[in-house]
């Protein structure tokens, strides 16, 4: 369970969030909708531990009763997905996945695990190609796969379907929902699109400026 208690985020005189509270059980999605500039992505930055110093923040982030708000991003075990897939262009798809696998898995097992995951999603034939040669949908799927391989404890999705066309958007969305249900992680989705929020189920928070 990811529990957010009295989250307050302030930029100079503007208060973006004041005493925001939410609880997201494992496998559930909290969707946050709102217009551009209302602070959705800033909230995700705070939750991931990468918020800029210019913001004043307070509040608690508890993951399974462990306080996270003072930990740096690399110690939080958070998975982040953006609009852009951000697959590293100089690494093959397989290497992109291997990059995310924890260090405890060593040697050949790393490549085997990455290949096994690619095969599960019918992408094995793309293992040794570069991300530049993937379609938008394939990039989105490998990007999620990479995030999941890093064994996150919670997921933050920052408009991950924003750049996909309508048909592809639905396909990728279904894929993401299926994964969240399988791995049972608390997830927060930020979106502009009502369809995204509806498809995800769970709680919906509507923000205004």
């Amino acid at each position, binding site marked *: 369970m990811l529990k957010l208690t009295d989250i307050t985020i302030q930029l100079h005189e503007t208060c973006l969030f004041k005493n925001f509270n939410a609880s997201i059980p494992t496998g559930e999605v909290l969707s946050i909708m709102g217009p551009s500039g209302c602070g959705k992505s800033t909230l995700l930055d705070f939750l*991931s531990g990468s918020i800029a110093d210019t913001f004043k923040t307070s509040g608690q982030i508890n993951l399974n009763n462990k306080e996270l708000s003072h930990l740096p991003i*690399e110690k939080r075990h958070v998975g982040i997905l953006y609009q852009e897939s951000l697959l590293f262009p100089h690494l093959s798809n397989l290497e992109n996945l291997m990059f995310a696998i924890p260090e405890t898995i060593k040697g050949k097992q790393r490549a085997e695990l990455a290949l096994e995951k690619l095969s599960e999603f019918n992408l094995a034939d793309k293992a040794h190609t570069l991300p530049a040669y993937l379609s938008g949908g394939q990039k989105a799927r490998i990007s999620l796969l990479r995030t999941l391989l890093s064994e996150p404890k919670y997921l933050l999705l920052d408009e991950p379907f924003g750049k996909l066309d309508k048909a592809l958007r639905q396909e990728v969305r279904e894929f993401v929902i299926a994964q969240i249900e399988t791995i049972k992680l608390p997830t927060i989705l930020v979106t502009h699109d009502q369809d995204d929020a509806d498809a995800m189920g769970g709680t919906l928070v509507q923000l205004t400026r």
Partner: protein
Amino acid sequence: MSLKLVNFIIVLSISVFMLIGILGIIAPAFHYLPAIGANEISLDPWKELFLAPEFISSIILTLISGVTATFLSLMIAFSVVAAFYDSKILSIFRKSLAPILAIPHAAIAIGLLFLLSPSGWLIRLFTTFERPPNWITIQDPYTLSLIFALVVKETPYLIFVILACLPQLKTDETLKVGRSMGYNVATIWQKILLPMIYPLIRLPVFIVLAFSLTVVDLALIIGPNTPSTFAVTIFRWFKDADLNERFSASAGAVFLMLFIFVIFIIWELAYRLLYFCSKKKLTTGNRSNLSQSFFQLLGSLYFFILISVILSSIILLLWSFAKRWRFPDILPSTWSFRNIERNITLLNDLSFNTLTIAISSNIIALIISLALLEAKRQQSCKKTLFDRLIYLPILLPQVGFLFGIQILFIKSGISGHFLSVIILHVFYTLPYVYLTLHSPYLAFNQNYLVQACALTHKPYKSFLQIKLAMLKAPIFSAFAIGFSVSIAQYLPTLIAGNGLINTLTTEAVTLASSGERKLVSLLALIQAFFPLIVFMLAIWLPKVWTPARLALKHYLYMRFSDSHSYTIKN
């Protein structure tokens, strides 16, 4: 005349010009120079070149100084960005880039000469010697001072280039993704960002490498003398009164071109080998492969570069106004404007020549660049032949190419005239002006112009008043960059001017080791002053242009509206 035809003529002219320059150096390299009665082709110049006593040592010095300076500059530039990304330190460093880039390298080298020499400021500041020590701190046989000067000049350029690449790499998001997987920041830079950056800056790195391997003026001022770097050795042969030296000089120039080409290949192979060997380590999952202090340590060397530039500039200022400054005094004992008063005619003449050449060559380079870019836009921004040719003037060693071109100027009777100097300055400033304007010009939203044409039905007026007016910031920047490149040109001015047209740069470099510290400092100071002023204007003018224009219009309206003799036109 259509833009396509203009484009064709420009590309043809530049190609022919380069071809003549290259042929003009290849032919004498095989003992063919009919102008001095050498009509038989032979390999003698090559034999003489390879048997020259300083050949091997010159090549070794060139290799050591050029490759080491490029490697160090690249490492420091990478480390500065990786260590201080998203910090106040980087924003301070970023502000220092434009002034350092604006200062001609000869001015920096002269400043460093007066700073590091045994009687220089550093010794005066930090030691208690009563007489200058017998140390070789400049023009040393190991090229250390030359390497230092090159690093001081090239590191800011590479930082500038790397910073320009970062937005397209989505650096912030990439760092977040990497860190969310548990990687520390230094390891993300090492494993992800730097391998992504290098392919984007490969060409600027080659430009730095080519410059470092072939530079003449900087090496003349602060490089080793006996033997000197290979480019300086060739330069001396070319300038030798014995015309027969010209053959082995030409062979040397051709050799230098091939040498650079081979070094490019070796550099690229070394990079690929390094990348191949380290690729396996990228995916081992080691989250803290490298500590941030590694980059911080290397990156903090940039502080020394900054301090060196500041001290060099200060010492030029001090020497310019010093009347008496004996060793080991830290400051001059008496000050005076006599140095300026005594040399005022010389300074006026040199400044006039320098400004005339820089301004006229840059206006021409701007017009050519705008014509080429407009032609490119009309062809849907496809990569043109010019886009490939444009890098050659920067990559070709000046010392060979220019002596090839000199024959053309002598034959056409323009050697020693302003025209030939301006032609060569256009040739060397054009790449910088064109490349600076390239992205902003092609990114311009053409609908503004379409709208303006639809409203006024006057395409030329719309082009000037809308498109160029909206692009004034990059146009001013391109002019400022081209201007500083032109001011810094030593060999092109010397060779095209044939000793008859002198500029601040040619005079400063010639006098650098003459012992006339006061005059040389003054020349270097003015040489640095002009580009700095132009850079400041390029930043300031676009900001105040429109408000000033509107204020003037308003004033004229208020002044003349009652008399009915003036009507405001929008």
